[in-house]
């Protein structure tokens, strides 16, 4: 009996020790050489590697993320090479868990010193974030879009890249339809004609949809009203403004593709992105990240991209579309002073490393906000980024709460599948978003758009 108890206790101890964090695996060693003989890098924000961080004493930092540990890990490895006394341990959490675990962990005294941020979770994270120890004007000189992230003269995260919507097309289907690069449409009318040519029917059913937007509703609906100068928020930046003519026009434009032009169907390929990947659909609207999805999940699909069409040929719209930023890392306000000091140093390294920042941007198919990379040949040749054109013609509405997206999705499903009139569905969406926003502190930043004009 005693042997059994001993065995049970030993097993429990082993299991518990396996769960413990500890720093038994730390690679940090004392650093005594401040002058590494390395150049100071950066444009306006500079990084000087020839210093001792944490006085050269070993220190560990955890860096939480939900994805891309290899890409982000390159920053950590490069930094550890310069500062061998620092060990940055990357912890990858699945997206769905990340946004509940991270805020709760940051509330405790045991949260990660560094963590990746997505601005859609701004409201749950901002309380626990340490401001960047870099003058805002210096950051703004090097990175686009910084002003939208300034809170009481400080920034807690900025964007390393911008992502927006565009049209993806299947190049094999494009060629089979006798289309060439000269046929890439500029306007929605031209787009309609191209979509018709790409549509293949067998009697009443589709063999190939020319254009499919099923289950991609929020992506275009929250962006295309900008083409007509319509914002998502009223001038006070606190009241949602979805129930308007521009949104209705967008709904009618897209329902017209199915009902009038018959280039696709609500019942053919219920998820447009999957249908495109499975080779059933010739064109879809999606955001830049879809390039990565295609590479990972549907590598056999060859695709091209072009900028989202506009209402009138030769007339520059108010804006082309909505964009969202991929955020830089956050620093835990509750980390120890030593960890925060190293985290701030690492942040400078991260923001000034042009090569790794380029890799990161290309990996996520986002246009780099780091100004020295704006004209980089690799960026301009990227299959997704090359289609965007002038990136100043995109609007960021701010970290919009999830209710915008969920309500728009529900609205579209009601219109397409439940036979609800667009006006009624739109009014319902407006009401739902109004109700949900009333319990948040969200304030939009559309008024920071360079060409902003309030309706």
């Amino acid at each position, binding site marked *: 009996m005693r042997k059994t108890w001993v065995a049970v206790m030993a097993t429990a101890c082993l299991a518990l020790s396996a769960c413990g964090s500890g720093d038994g695996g730390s690679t940090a060693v004392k650093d005594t050489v401040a002058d590494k003989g390395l150049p100071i890098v950066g444009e306006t924000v500079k990084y000087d590697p020839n210093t001792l961080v944490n006085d050269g004493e070993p220190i560990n930092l955890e860096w939480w993320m939900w994805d891309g540990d290899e890409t982000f890990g390159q920053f950590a490895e490069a930094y550890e090479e310069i500062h061998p006394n620092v060990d940055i341990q990357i912890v990858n959490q699945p997206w769905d868990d990340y*946004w*509940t675990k991270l*805020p*709760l962990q940051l*509330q405790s005294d045991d949260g990660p010193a560094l963590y990746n941020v997505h601005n859609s979770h701004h*409201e*749950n*994270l*901002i*309380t626990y974030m340490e401001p960047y120890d870099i003058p805002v004007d210096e950051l703004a000189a090097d990175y686009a879009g910084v002003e939208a992230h300034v809170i009481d003269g400080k920034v807690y995260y900025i964007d390393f890249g911008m992502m927006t919507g565009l049209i993806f097309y299947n190049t094999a289907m494009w060629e089979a339809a006798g289309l060439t690069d000269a046929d890439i449409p500029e306007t929605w009318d031209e787009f309609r004609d191209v979509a018709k040519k790409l549509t293949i029917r067998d009697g009443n*059913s589709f063999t190939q949809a020319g254009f499919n937007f*099923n289950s991609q509703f929020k992506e275009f609906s929250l962006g295309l009203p900008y083409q007509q100068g319509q914002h998502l928020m009223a001038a006070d930046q606190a009241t949602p403004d979805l129930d308007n003519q521009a949104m209705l026009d967008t709904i009618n434009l897209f329902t017209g593709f199915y009902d009038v032009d018959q280039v696709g169907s*609500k*019942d*053919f*390929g*219920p998820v447009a992105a999957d249908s495109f990947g*499975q080779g*059933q659909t010739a064109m879809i609207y999606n955001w830049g990240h879809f390039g990565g999805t295609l590479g990972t999940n549907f590598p056999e699909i060859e695709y091209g991209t072009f900028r989202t069409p506009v209402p009138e040929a030769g007339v520059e719209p108010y804006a082309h579309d909505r964009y969202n930023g991929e955020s830089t890392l956050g620093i835990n306000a509750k980390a120890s002073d030593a960890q925060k000091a190293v985290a701030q140093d690492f942040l400078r390294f991260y923001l000034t490393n042009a090569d790794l920042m380029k890799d990161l941007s290309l990996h996520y198919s986002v246009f780099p906000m780091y100004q020295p990379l704006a004209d980089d040949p690799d960026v301009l040749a990227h299959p997704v980024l090359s289609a965007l054109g002038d990136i100043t013609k995109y609007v960021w509405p701010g970290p919009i*709460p*999830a*209710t915008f997206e*969920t309500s728009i*999705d*529900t609205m579209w*499903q*009601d219109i*397409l*599948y*439940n036979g*609800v009139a667009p006006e009624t569905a739109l009014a319902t969406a407006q009401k*739902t978003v109004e*109700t*949900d926003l009333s*319990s948040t502190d969200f304030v939009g930043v559309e008024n920071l758009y360079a060409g902003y004009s309030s309706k």
Partner: protein
Amino acid sequence: MLTPKRPEMTAHGGAALIARTPARRVYKGERSLRMSVVVGIVVLNVLLLVIPIGIAFVGSFHQWNPLNGTFNYLGLDNYTQLLGDARFWTATANTGIFGVVVITLRVALGLALAYAVWSKMTRFKTFFRTLFYMPTVTPLVAVAYVWKLMYHPQVGAINSIFGFDVNWLFDSQFALPAIMLMTVWKDFGYAVILFLAGLYSLPEDALEAAGVDGASAWQRFRLIVLPLLRPMMLFVVVTSIISYLQAFVQVMVLTKGGPGTSTSIISYLVYEEAFVKYNFGYASAIAFVLLILTALLTLVSFKMSGGRKLFGKGA
């Protein structure tokens, strides 16, 4: 040494009524082992169930987001908002339809198949028991993803095999029935096994007496078997009510409450409010209404089936 008395089987129903056992010797260490097990379970339930429920109850009167520390008193606002929320009423109606249909089919199918397997004419009983129970032990998430593929309008097995042209999960006429069908398939085996257990515990003499008296198969089933299975049926119905009012995974995987809100059920609404919109106070209010609804329905089922009589006063 005293021998513990075996529990007696009741003549009606086959449910085991635990008879009061006479005093018997308490083995060394038994009392402390018993106490530590019971105390452990009670402590765990208090920590993981009672306290969180209490916190959620308090939270239901607040604008509450534990992720950023928001906790502002609202009084009954969440409950009054809920009563005027069309999404809540749609979800309640969907939950009711889902529960009634799935429980009915689960009980009917479970009982029919159990009776068939129990029959003396049926061979390969173990094979059938295993076959019927297999979906029950398969993870629901995995089953739901497979059925999602099967329901695909272009490449799905259902349309391909039966020659249908239906967009199952995106047509509001078919989406909820499609989820219900998957759920019945997944869960009927549980009812089969329980009903089989009930059938095997039926008193042979009552069945033989019915045969001697010339009762037909249908009479034997309706007048003898069914009444004796009432306790088991009540158990299946009550546990089904509890689990189906909380059904979530199948909706999450198959439709996410769509198209529109046509498959939104209460637990999915709770999830959406809490973990998508971070409106934990409102989600808690909805969850409490669900809790009350579950308790009421359980009580009604119990009363209607004469639960106290069936399970004794302690029930």
